[in-house]
């Protein structure tokens, strides 16, 4: 199975005045297509920083990140934006829907930005139905519950069939019922559409829906846990 994402010895140092704050101290990670990885760790361990670097929202101080065969880490802003547009979908804790647009409008703008490259109506319909949103297309975010907003955000993130979906605490602002619904959706996307997903979470129960768990602390990966059933398919140990 092909490697969809590879991070090689990624470091990130922030300068706060004269003080250098290392957020990541050398993180390496390889992800196969179709995997669902959870990254857990205490606050300040560098999970979000890692996600931002993997998604091309910022670049590392050292190291390499390759997304679906394209190096994103050393690319200039325009090139990183281009890779992010084509290959990466984001889901955030605060949903981050555009408040003046309806659910459909939020999806449309994602398609517009993608320039309708690969998106097509059948796929949109499939996504909306899969996420149970066909009755909410005209509603604005203020007219939807948290769970519905997050489902729209997920729909927007996958509408253009990105290589990887990056989810930053997707259930952080949801109650247990909605959290479960969102996690089930992510699982369904992973199973049905073979969507590769990296999810950051504090919640061990949320993390358990993934088939690989990565633990971080102090800017480093300290352990990997695998779903044995996944590894049995490949007959490999994969880090």
């Amino acid at each position, binding site marked *: 199975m092909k490697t969809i994402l590879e991070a090689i010895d990624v470091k990130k140092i922030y300068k706060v005045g004269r003080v250098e704050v290392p957020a990541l101290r050398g993180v390496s990670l390889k992800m196969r297509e179709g995997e669902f990885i959870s990254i857990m760790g205490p606050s300040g361990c560098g999970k979000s920083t890692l996600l931002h670097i993997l998604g091309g929202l910022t670049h590392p101080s050292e190291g390499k990140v390759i997304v679906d065969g394209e190096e994103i880490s050393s690319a200039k802003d325009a090139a990183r*934006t281009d890779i*992010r*547009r084509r290959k990466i979908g984001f889901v955030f804790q605060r949903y*981050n829907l*555009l*408040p003046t647009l309806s659910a459909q409008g939020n999806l449309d703008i994602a398609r517009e*930005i993608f320039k309708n490259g690969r998106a097509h109506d059948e796929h949109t319909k499939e996504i909306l139905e899969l996420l149970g949103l066909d009755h909410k297309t005209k509603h604005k975010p203020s007219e939807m519950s948290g769970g519905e907003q997050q489902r729209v955000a997920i729909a927007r993130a996958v509408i253009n069939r990105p290589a990887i979906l990056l989810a930053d605490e997707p259930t952080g602002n949801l109650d247990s019922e909605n959290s479960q619904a969102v996690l089930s959706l992510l699982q369904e996307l992973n199973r049905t559409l073979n969507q590769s997903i990296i999810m950051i979470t504090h919640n061990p129960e949320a993390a358990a829906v993934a088939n690989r768990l990565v633990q971080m602390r102090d800017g480093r990966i300290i352990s990997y846990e695998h779903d044995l059933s996944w590894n049995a398919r490949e007959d490999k140990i994969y880090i």
Partner: protein
Amino acid sequence: MEVVLIILVVGMTRGMIKESAKRIEGIGADIVFQPPGSSYILASSTAAMLEKIAGVIQETEGVDAVAPVMVQFNTQGGIGLIYGIDVASFDRVTNGFSFIQGRAFRAPDEVIIDDIQAKSKRLQVGDRVDFLNHSFRVSGIFEHGKGSRIFLPLRTMQELTGTPGKVTLIFIKCKDKEEIPAVSSRLRERFKGYTVSPLSEFVSQVYNATNNVAALKYFLNVVIFVCTSVGFFAIFLAMYTAVTERKREIGILKSLGASRPYVLAIFLKEAFVLCTVGLALGIALSFWGKALLLRVLPSFQVEIGLDWIVKAALIAFLSAGLGAFYPALRASSQDPIDALAE
């Protein structure tokens, strides 16, 4: 506001000049004779010519009638020109006034005014009015379009301005319209240095005053510059505020993969829409302003031409584009992580 100011200020300037030119045309003379160095902007002229010259001009071959006139710029009871005339000679050149009320002046302290001036100042025959720090009685109200809105006896004007025996210009009527060029040549030959202008040429110069008179051109350019600056800063502030308030949205768009040109285009398009709405409103308000001015100040003529509407539109779009560019550039350069952290 930028559009309204440009259209109305230019409109008032052009309207006043055009109306002034029409009234000069309405005198019906064939040639305008002025002292050396005179301007066709009569407000800037001074009485610098002997009245006796009119008698010599009368003897010139081809001349039918002459009317010496003193022109004085008036700021009392309104802004405009006052003509000091000898009624008899003026009537011979212009075929006389069409009186709506009353008659021409017969006494030194009588004045005649046109119907627009009368309406503007709510004057009737018999009312008293002050010009040149002197009280006059309105003896007649005539139909507008004959040079000035206010006429005084020439002798009175000369006394009040301390320039006895002097006039500003002389209107000349030829025996035959075909002879105008020949008469003009004779007058130039006889009175070297004096300004001899066929009326059509004189009026044409007045119509083009906004292009030909440096001071006027400068004034209009300053007004346009100020209006453009107003527009620029208005759009700049509006877009800068929009960028600041929508930082998070910009972050969302960037996380979706929106490029810098895409984000830049969003804000420039918004500025364009704002400008278009402002332009439409500005044009509508300009026409309303014109109607209001005509109602409140009937002597104020405003001409709103398509050429200046187009120019105002171009200026508006240019200032909007420039005003929006920096905020749009700032928006497109925002760090998505910082923006999403808002």
